[in-house]
């Protein structure tokens, strides 16, 4: 049965909280593309990204009770789940090992001119337009999940500078989004 109904976010939430297939199907059809793009921004390898997408949507379905609409939109909440799950995958030993193997294969593809460029995907595309110092910061925090303290140590710059730079990176990012 094909559904063409359009739901408002609060209506969709009712359907999901009642655990209906229709609700989940709508959620997937409407958000999987945007969420997949968030994941691809962190995990560039499509097969791994697709596995993570599965994990993320199963998590969304199982944890929907913990979502509180007072704290933000459903999409914002789902993006956080996607981002954290993806960062966990990238940090796992298994992924690290696969990446090392892949580097050899990748260079072959690159020679053939079919390289996959994550800078063309989603939020990465916007971040790519930032100044170098801002890009570095967003990359470490948003895509790699480091805290401001950790970044301050890694880059050997004072925490205060990290905070100021972060804020100005955010303002630049907003401008790019608005274009």
């Amino acid at each position: 049965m094909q559904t063409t109904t359009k739901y408002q976010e609060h209506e969709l939430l009712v359907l999901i909280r009642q655990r209906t297939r229709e609700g989940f199907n709508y959620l997937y059809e409407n958000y999987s593309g945007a969420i997949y793009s968030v994941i691809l921004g962190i995990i560039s390898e499509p097969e791994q990204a697709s596995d993570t997408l599965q994990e993320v949507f199963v998590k969304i379905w199982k944890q929907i009770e913990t979502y509180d609409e007072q704290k933000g939109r459903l999409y914002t909440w789902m993006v956080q789940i996607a981002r954290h799950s993806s960062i966990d995958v990238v940090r796992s030993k298994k992924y690290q090992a696969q990446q090392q193997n892949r580097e050899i294969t990748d260079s072959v593809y690159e020679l053939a001119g079919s390289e996959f460029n994550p800078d063309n995907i989603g939020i990465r595309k916007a971040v790519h337009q930032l100044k170098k110092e801002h890009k570095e910061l967003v990359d470490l925090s948003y895509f790699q999940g480091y805290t401001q303290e950790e970044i301050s140590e890694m880059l050997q710059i004072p925490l205060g500078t990290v905070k100021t730079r972060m804020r100005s990176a955010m303002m630049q990012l907003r401008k790019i989004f608005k274009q």
Partner: protein
Amino acid sequence: MDTQEYISSGIVEQFVLGLCSSEEEQEILRLRKIHPELNAAIFDFELLLEAEGQANAVVPPPAAKAAIFSQIEDSFKDTLPKIVPVQPQEEIPTIPGYNGKKNNWLAYAAAAAFILFLANAVGSIMLYNKYKSVQGAYASLQKENAQVKLQFNSMYADVQRMSNKSTQRIDMAGVAGREESLATVFWNRETSEVYLFKNNLPTPEKGKQYQLWAIVDGQPVDAGMLDADCEGLCKLKSIPNAQAFAITLEKEGGSPTPTMSEMYVLGTT
């Protein structure tokens, strides 16, 4: 703190993207409760982020959807009943008086009935879901309705009291320096009941309470305390006889004699 400056500092974006330290997050969560414009800015950026995300969506491989659904299949509450194929019977029973060929209409009728049954089942399930969500909305409306009824009844009782032919209305105007204050006493001379309506009195500070006084032969007589949470007509102490009524602000619980410097309104009967 300048809210506008805070809003445009980049903290909103940092918060929505989940990049705040826990102190920064605590701060913005606290501030959004008291500054609606901050809350609106957060919401705006969430919308912007969502629009950006949708504009850059990448369609995932179709296999992913099937894999997800197979993992959570059992948790759906609206799953349609599985259609079990009907086993063909070895021999179609014949009705005496008809030959085999003419019996076809029976098979067609059965098929039609079965299709109708399925369509009905699907419809029922959809209706049931709709019913469930309407039921929730109905319960909250009922609750609201009961509250409104209660308010209406108490207002109706107030109107009855005010319009009683034995009820005298005494307008108490603000005294010098407190001209904007206003209160009204509805005094039933037959039953001595006194009702007070707070038209306009400043909210008393903590530990203070308004006290009504009846002036009887030049002497102030305590006519009761005005509860802070009383709305509409508030019943105070019964007064059989009075030439005037006045309100002073006293310590919580009241005073034996009025503090004249704290008089707000006064009106003669």
